[in-house]
């Protein structure tokens, strides 16, 4: 009997927490707009095949560099115009959303998982383990992130997968540091000692007892890293080191469009705008998450 009562109140507490979270998140109007745009992006990515008017790689040889429909010379079927080989810009942009979300999710997952494990180990065990791990993290952080990612891609070979791995490696120390700092703060608290006295092993203490109490700053950092990942992978694509043509990744599209900047503004403008809007939306969301989850970091 007591068991169900406890479980019920657990659920109630969780509902209360979600309500609280939503209350604070909603206070930040920008964050709500960001969330809305982000959801649109997700819908665009998931339903790309339905939403896109054309195949993103189909080349219409009779429609090279057609301007957007409202500009002079624009054509009915190509709302945002076509690129230099006659592919529909709108369809490519819609499919490009898949790349950006995929990159963000993969990069953040790898960096978050790696960072949490490394940070937990460093913070929990302390001593020389901590010193060695944190010095290694310092070394990675000493390199400008884009440069290190570029060199890693040079080692692994250009391509989307390698670009994602490289960016994840570069981001991982941020998560490790954050986790370590939270773990060091938490591990001396009474509830951890209580769990230890009750016979919890190291692994249980690390992952079940301490970790859930360190998640708030990690979620905020994950959101910020998501937007940086979109930005950095686009930069790598732009430099020819990320997704390779004919992929409709936005950075790669910009790289292909570079030689036409003075002739066809639309091939340059739209992919960049897509990157900016997605990154901005995620950053707005991140601000709101920080306000809602982490009162200590709250913007004054």
């Amino acid at each position, binding site marked *: 009997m007591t068991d169900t009562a406890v479980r019920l109140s657990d659920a109630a507490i969780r509902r209360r927490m979600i309500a609280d979270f939503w209350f604070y998140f909603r206070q930040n109007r920008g964050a709500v707009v960001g969330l809305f745009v982000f959801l649109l992006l997700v819908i665009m990515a998931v339903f790309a095949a339905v939403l896109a008017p054309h195949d993103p790689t189909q080349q219409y040889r009779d429609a090279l560099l057609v301007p957007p429909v409202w500009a002079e010379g624009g054509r009915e079927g190509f709302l945002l115009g076509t690129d230099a080989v006659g592919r529909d810009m709108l369809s490519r942009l819609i499919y490009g959303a898949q790349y950006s979300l995929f990159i963000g999710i993969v990069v953040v997952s790898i960096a978050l998982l790696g960072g949490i494990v490394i940070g937990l180990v460093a913070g929990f065990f302390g001593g020389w383990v901590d010193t060695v791990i944190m010095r290694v993290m310092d070394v990675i952080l000493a390199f400008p992130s884009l440069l290190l990612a570029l060199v890693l891609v040079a080692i692994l070979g250009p391509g989307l997968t390698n670009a994602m791995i490289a960016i994840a490696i570069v981001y991982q120390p941020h998560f490790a540091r954050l986790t370590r700092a939270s773990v060091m703060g938490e591990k001396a608290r009474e509830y951890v000692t209580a769990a230890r006295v009750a016979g919890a092993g190291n692994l249980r203490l690390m992952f079940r007892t301490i970790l859930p109490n360190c998640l708030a700053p990690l979620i905020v950092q994950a959101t910020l890293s998501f*937007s940086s990942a979109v930005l950095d992978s686009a930069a790598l694509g732009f430099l020819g080191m990320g997704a390779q043509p004919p992929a409709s990744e936005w950075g790669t599209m910009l790289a292909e469009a570079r030689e036409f900047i003075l002739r066809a503004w639309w091939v340059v403008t739209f992919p960049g705008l897509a990157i900016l809007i997605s990154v901005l939306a995620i950053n707005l969301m991140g601000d709101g998450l920080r306000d809602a989850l982490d009162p200590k970091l709250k913007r004054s």
Partner: protein
Amino acid sequence: MIRFILGKLLYLVPTFLGITLIAFGFVRVLPGDPVLLMAGERGLTPERHAELSAQLGFDKPVWMQYLDFLGRLLHGDFGISLVTKKPVLTEFMALFPATVELGFCAIVIATLIGVPVGVIAAIRRGSWFDQVSMTTALVGFSMPIFWWGLLLIILFSGILQWTPVSGRISLMYFFPPVTGFMLIDSLLSGQEGAFRSALSHLILPSVVLATIPLAVIARQTRSAMLEVMGEDYVRTARAKGMAPARVVGVHALRNAMIPVVTTIGLQIGVLMAGAILTETIFSWPGIGKWMIDSISRRDYPVVQSGLLLIAVLVMVVNLIVDLTYGLINPRIRHR
């Protein structure tokens, strides 16, 4: 203070060794034969291969190779570029001023605009100025700068034809480099219009490179000001009837600047990454473009040493920021 500096310096030794280890390991984890990669020759006879291998030290045990590598670094030998056949350090030194000039102008623009905007936004918290400037800052912070650069080229070089598309100065002007900084050299040359030309080449890349630091500095200044404005000593200063401008300028700003100075310093790493993109877009002959070109030309000695030099540079700048922080905030160094 001396103990504080020494402590910081000691702390850097493992980081420095780690950086050298990464640069050293980089060539060895590349797919392919390191001898071929570092020598840049193809179709080698076995004899020539053995000769090169001995010459580059690849026939020794790895730990000895690393010690040799460290020894060469400490003697200023950073290898020879496969493409230009010049010492990497010479190339680095020749291109470095271009990047410094660009980065310096960018950080000056970012600070001169970012700090006042942040201060005004904090004083007039909630006003339209606060909202517009902070929204703009968030847009700037989210900006893909390689795209932003292209847009500015379309507008200012294409449509308005105000600025040139690329390079550091018009081909009409030629003078031997004295300082390596085009703005200064063009003035020293005494050639009419040279300074103007150098300035017009510099302005767009600087603005592009300044965008993200500007956004970060404005946001950081605002939040630091808001924090300080809530402190007791500011309220006291107000209560005793001090002029608002004096309260802000003397009491609040000086204390708010402590975290802002750190933020500005920490932007150097961001600038280095930004320089790679900015220099590529504007064909700016600095170390960012040099690194990109070397990576795509597989000029591995340059990539290896360039990576190392840039990382050490960022490390040293961060040290200087740390020391400045200790200087302006005595609480830190007595911890």
